[in-house]
Structures are given as structure tokens and as C-alpha cells.
């Protein structure tokens, strides 16, 4: 088999996951995209391991061992990540990562999205109202 097939497929899958991480808004969808990226890396590791075990007489099978480690670490990561998402959802009532801006710098976040100014103005109005009532 030509080595370019698995390499190209894993590159495409990785970039698909990259798009998902950058463009998604729900935290769980972001976790799904991270899983896609990790799987792309796994495919690369397996393909190069199968190639090197024959071409370079490499008997360590480091690619497959690393793939098993990556799968395990991905399972641990998804467990911790979902626990964090659930904790945030319990405290904030949302799993929208665009709304979690408490550590952002500046007085008010200015979103580049078209519905950003309305939302920010609404939030600022609520904040002023809260301060006035307090």
C-alpha cells in the first residue's frame, strides 16, 4: 500500500478536527473534534509503525505502543473534560464556551460576531441595573 494514503487521510482528519475545535461553540462538540484530531494522530502512528517494522526491521513496535497510550490518555481526557463541562454547566447553566469570559481582559468583551454588540449591550445594561439596585 502506498504510504501516502494513510498519511493524507490522517492529515485531512486532523484538519477537520482543527476546524471543529476552532468553529464549534458547544464544549462537548469541541471535545468531539479533539477526539477526531487524536484519532488522526493514531492513524499516522499505526501506518508508520507498519511501514517501519518491515522497511527498517524495527521490532520495538513503538508506533503501536504509542497508539495504545494515546487511546488511553484520550479516554482519561474525555472523562476529565466531561466532568469539567458538567461542573461548569451546573454552575453557569450553559456549556457555551463563548459565554465563559470571566477571565477575559478589558472592561467588556467585544465579540467579533455580528450578534456580539447586542449581547454585550444587554449584559452591560443588566450589570448597570444590578449595580443600581445594589
Amino acid at each position, binding site marked *: 500500500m502506498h504510504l501516502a494514503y494513510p498519511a493524507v487521510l490522517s492529515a485531512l482528519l486532523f484538519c477537520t478536527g482543527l476546524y471543529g475545535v476552532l*468553529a464549534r461553540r458547544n464544549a462537548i462538540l469541541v471535545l468531539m473534534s479533539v477526539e477526531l484530531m487524536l484519532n488522526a494522530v493514531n492513524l499516522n502512528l499505526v501506518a508508520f509503525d507498519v511501514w517501519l517494522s518491515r522497511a527498517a526491521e524495527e521490532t520495538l513496535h513503538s508506533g503501536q505502543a504509542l497508539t495504545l497510550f494515546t487511546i488511553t490518555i484520550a479516554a482519561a481526557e474525555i472523562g476529565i473534560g466531561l466532568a469539567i463541562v*458538567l461542573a461548569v454547566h451546573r454552575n453557569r447553566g450553559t456549556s457555551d464556551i463563548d459565554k465563559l469570559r*470571566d477571565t477575559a481582559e478589558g472592561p467588556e468583551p467585544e465579540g467579533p460576531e455580528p450578534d456580539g454588540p447586542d449581547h454585550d449591550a444587554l449584559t452591560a445594561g443588566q450589570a448597570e441595573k444590578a449595580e443600581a439596585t445594589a
Partner: protein
Amino acid sequence: MSLAAAAATAHATTTITTTTAAEAHGFLSPTGVEIAFLLVGLVTFGAALITVTTRQLVHAALWLVVALGGLAVEYLLLTAEFIAWVQVLIYVGSVVVLLLFGLMLTKAPIGRSPDADSGNRWVALTVAVVAAATLVWVVVDAFRTTWIDLDGPAAGSTRATGESLFQNWVLPFEALSVLLLAALVGAIVLSRKAKAESSSPPVNSRAATGSSPSVPDSRNHPIEGNGRGEGTSPAEQEGAR
């Protein structure tokens, strides 16, 4: 001088090897394994694309099953059978189920959700397309004349994987079990309900000024905050429909 001569000899040797390889495998005569790999790869890539673009959250998780199952078939085609079954067991069996539970527990809207994609979608698309073009170009250019030899005994059989894992990789394997234990304890600690709410230190001032509207309610009246969270999601669902 001798170094240069050795380098030239090595270069000539590699050239001979690659030319013989290119003669043995034609560019335009794909084998059956390559055709199967290509077809399954197309299915996998399409499922991954739908996963990152669909607006229905549960459908994204279900298409992720297709993508991960397709990758398991690719591992089988690469003769890595143990990795393939581990992939089926862990990813399709547990990770996707965990993701579905997460979607249910965060009360994800059923049906089309209008705000699944962020506002910087086009920037993300540009970055992803440029990265994909660069990576594919580099990879194809680098491994143009490289073939995987899939004949003979399977390079990734369970016997080979197990022998290498328990002869050469025992210490990382044991360290991995400690990591899994740490992840288990961490997940339990994170998802336990905090009992001492009053003794927790005050949140920073930005949260108190209402940069996210539900924070003060959920901190002062946790039950009402939860009820509010439950109340918003059916409205979002109806808005989605």
C-alpha cells in the same frame, strides 16, 4: 572525502531502492487493499466533516461513531488488528457513550440548534483549509515513493503487539495505569457536588458584575439557578424548532 563518498553511495542505494519499489508498484494500478482503504477513507472523512458541521448535536455524536468505526477498519487494513479492536472497544464503545451522556446531562437541544457554530467560523475554515493544503502537500511530496509492504506475517498482530508491549514498554504501561487511576479520582472529585458552598472563597469581581447573567443567581440561590438553567433549555428547543 570519505564522508562524501559514503553519502553518495548511500544516496545511490536509496535511489536504487526507490526505483525498484516504484517499478514493483505502479502509480496507476492500485491494489485491492488500496481501493478498500480509499473507499473506507472517503466514508471516514465524510463522516468527520458531517460531525464538525452538523447543527444537530446528537447527530454529531452518531456521525462520530461512523468516523471512528471507519478508522477501526483502516487499522484492520493496515494489519493492526489489536489496535482496531481496542479502537472499537474504547472509542465506539465508551467514549461516544460518554459524549452522549454529556449531551444529555447538559440538556443539549434536540433538533437543529442555531448557535452550534461560533462567529469565527470563516477564520476557522481558512485556518483548517490552509493547514490541510500544507500538510497534504508536504506529506505527498515526502512519501511519494514509499510503499508499505503488507505481505507476509502481519506486522501488527496481537502477538507482535503484546510481545513488544510487555517486553519493551512495561514501565510506561504501568505508569499509564497510574494515570488512569488519577483520571478516575479526578473525575469523581470534579463531578461530586460541593458540600461547603458557603466556605468557598468569593468569586472575582467580574463575575459579580454580571458578565454572565446566571452567575449571581446560581451562587446565591443554587436551586433557583438550576431551575433557571432547566427553564432556558426548552425555550431554546422551541426556538430551534
